[in-house]
């Protein structure tokens, strides 16, 4: 895209003093945040809090990874928050109806797949902008979820299911294990398989990809299905964590997910992104919230600071990227 090819645009050159910060990768920035919080509060580095932090970032992280696939193709998936809420209802409903847990889980994930297929169909066959089709499902899915629950919540009584999100394994919260379970195949897919390369190619130049024999349509199906399936998976985790199915939950999580992804270096113009970037982005956001809570920052100041930190972090990261060119 034009924006990408601008050369030598007025990239401000880093000044002396703060230059250490400029060299930091995103991971470095996250660690710096952790270090600072460790110094500022006693509670931060307690095992308990680290567990909390890992749990708190987990769901956004998974959504952000799914979202990243879509953004790399120069698309967007606004529906993920709604899919999370919706699938939390579906699984609660199925469990309430006595469906065995394994089947309920599989059925819920399948719903995720179907939603992704629907999005890709709208984009590929009907020629709709991704923004529109996913905005439409965002709206409709919340409606369907509300209809199913009649505006209320469905309690989940299956202990095995609700205990899952609370459990630890090898001292690490199961929710964080789920991030790993998603991230590793996602990494293999995006960075090591040819389909990952195709996502980048489609996002960079659809026509060139097509003339090179890339099945552009299938690639788009893949991206949206992965995003929705990640969202459905998060819906399961959410249902397990809060023990209810509720269609209005996860409101605005799509923005969180997109923001995590962009903070992690993904370009909304497509063709730029990774799996580790959005993970870092999600945990940076989680850390900001966790830290503010521990420091007992006034909730309103917390918002102001979050906004400012996002600017600062992305600014440093941009500088580093430019510098390394």
């Amino acid at each position, binding site marked *: *895209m034009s924006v*990408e*090819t601008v*050369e*030598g645009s007025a990239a401000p050159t880093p000044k002396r003093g703060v230059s250490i910060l400029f060299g930091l990768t995103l991971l470095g920035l996250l660690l710096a945040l952790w270090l600072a919080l460790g110094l500022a509060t006693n509670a931060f580095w307690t095992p308990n809090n680290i567990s909390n932090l890992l749990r708190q970032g987990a769901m956004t992280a998974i959504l952000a990874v799914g979202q990243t696939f879509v953004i790399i193709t120069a698309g967007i998936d606004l529906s993920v928050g709604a899919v999370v809420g919706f699938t939390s209802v579906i699984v609660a409903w199925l469990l309430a109806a006595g469906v065995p847990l394994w089947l309920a889980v599989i059925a819920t994930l399948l719903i995720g797949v179907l939603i992704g297929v629907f999005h890709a169909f709208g984009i590929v066959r009907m020629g709709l902008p991704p923004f529109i089709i996913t905005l439409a499902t965002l709206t409709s899915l919340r409606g369907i979820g509300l209809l199913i629950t009649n505006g209320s919540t469905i309690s989940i009584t299956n202990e095995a299911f609700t205990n899952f999100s609370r459990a630890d394994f090898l001292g690490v919260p199961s929710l964080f294990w789920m991030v790993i379970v998603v991230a590793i195949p996602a990494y*293999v897919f995006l960075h*090591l*398989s*040819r389909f990952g*390369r*195709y996502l*980048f*190619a489609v996002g*960079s*130049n659809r*026509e*060139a*990809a*097509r*003339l*090179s*024999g*890339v*099945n552009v349509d299938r690639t788009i199906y893949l991206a949206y299905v992965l995003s929705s399936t990640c969202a459905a998976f998060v819906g399961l985790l959410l249902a397990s964590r809060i023990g209810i199915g509720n269609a209005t939950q996860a409101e605005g999580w799509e923005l969180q997910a997109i923001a995590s992804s962009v903070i992690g270096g993904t370009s909304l113009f497509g*063709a*730029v992104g990774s799996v580790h970037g959005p993970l870092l982005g999600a945990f940076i956001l989680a850390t900001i919230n966790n830290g503010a809570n521990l420091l007992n920052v006034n909730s309103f100041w917390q918002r102001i600071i979050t906004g400012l930190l996002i600017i600062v972090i992305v600014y440093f990261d941009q500088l580093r990227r430019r510098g390394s*060119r």
Partner: protein
Amino acid sequence: MTGLQEVSHRRDAELKTAVPKGEPILDLLGLQKNYGAVQALKPASITFLSGEIHAIVGENGAGKSTLIKLLTGVIPRTAGEVRWCGEPVQLASPNEAIARGINAVHQEVVLCPHLSVAANMFLGDEMDRNGLMRKRAMTAAAQGVLDDLGFNLPADATLGILTIGQQQLVATARAAMRGTRFLIFDEPTAYLTRQESAQLFRLIRRLQNEGVTIVYISHRLEEVFELADRVSVLRDGTHVGTRRIGETNEAELIALMINRTIEQIYHKEHFPLGETIVETRGLTGPGFSDVSLSVRSGEIVGLYGLIGAGRSEFALGLYGRHPIGAGEVYWQGRKVEIDNERKAMELGIALAPESRRDQGLCLNLPIGLNVNLPVFRRLTRGLTINRAEEAANADRQIRDLQIKTPSRRVLASAMSGGNQQKIVIGKWLSHGAKLFIFDEPTVGVDVGTKAEIYRLFARLLEQGAGIILISSYLPEVYELADRLHVFRQGRIVASHDYRAASHEEVLAQAINA
């Protein structure tokens, strides 16, 4: 007053204060540009004289476009000084260059695809009255300029629907209209046929007569000898010399450029023709109709025609990118329906498309990914790509085609125009296809590499493949094609065996003279 004159009335006013003809107008003193570690232009000192046509030649990646970008304020220089009419100037932004009457037709067409032709021509310099644009007046004026230059283009069309060659004409018209004192052409004839080139040359001479100083970059040395007063040679970012055109010859220039000699550019080997690979009968689609031709193993079939003659459209149709309206395709004697690109690839067809920017490259991705894109399936082992093979294949193409890059990880957008073109070709060389369609394969490629590419063609033929070669550069198709088809308005109007007709005949057929 009509057309060009009308809108360039300012030129006369400005030229009144001009430097006398033959005096230095633009002086470069140790001008230098680094992209990170890459020294694109090492300290160069060149003087441009008022009113001359000054050619610049050099290998791909030699730094020609970089020089132009420095002079037009597109990129900031790393070091050195520029003097304009004797005064040191900063040239920090395109605006500053434009204000001094310096303008360029860049190698890559840089226009706005969503705007109309007229809007592009007037961009940044709109006519308005009381703050409101005079759209009709601008369209009319733009049409006047286009007509005046002999470019057959509608001023009110959206730029994006034009072919790359047509877009280049628009960029030319635009610069001619606005380059009031110093005008630079960076490979303007890359996509043009002889016919359109001739129009361009007329334009350039006319501008010269009006007192405009011209810089002309080309890989086609005969053009340099036809047009230029002086020629400067760049090699590896270094200015290795400037010659008066009467005091040099092709051999010397080539020797300066690549530091060795080339015996024969058009490397042509004749192979015994094998079985027919593909045959089209009355193929009709968007932009072409009733095209019947065949390609045999070991054969190069050339397609020649003017801009918009329908050759590229035919290639895209055959490749399954565009729907076929009527006619049949026989693949090795069997009737086939090629309705998408993958089917074409599976049969064994490879297409290197004409526009590297729009169709050929993923510009913001690494060279390696671009080169391997058509063959990832083959590089896959189980679930993942075999990274070693991936690297090896990319590195091999980089080596074979002498793509000038420190690494396969560099983004395609950081390559010089000619090197980008080589990536487009390199994508398909390891594909193992039976039929290769090369659409303008050597656009912007330097003479040395051109010869190398022709050698690679010969290797493909030797392995039993057939080639369809589309080129707007008549000598290329003329010297290489075993059979040459001339296109006009989407149809084949004449066919010739190897060198059976003269250049003049072929050209006449293409333009229906």
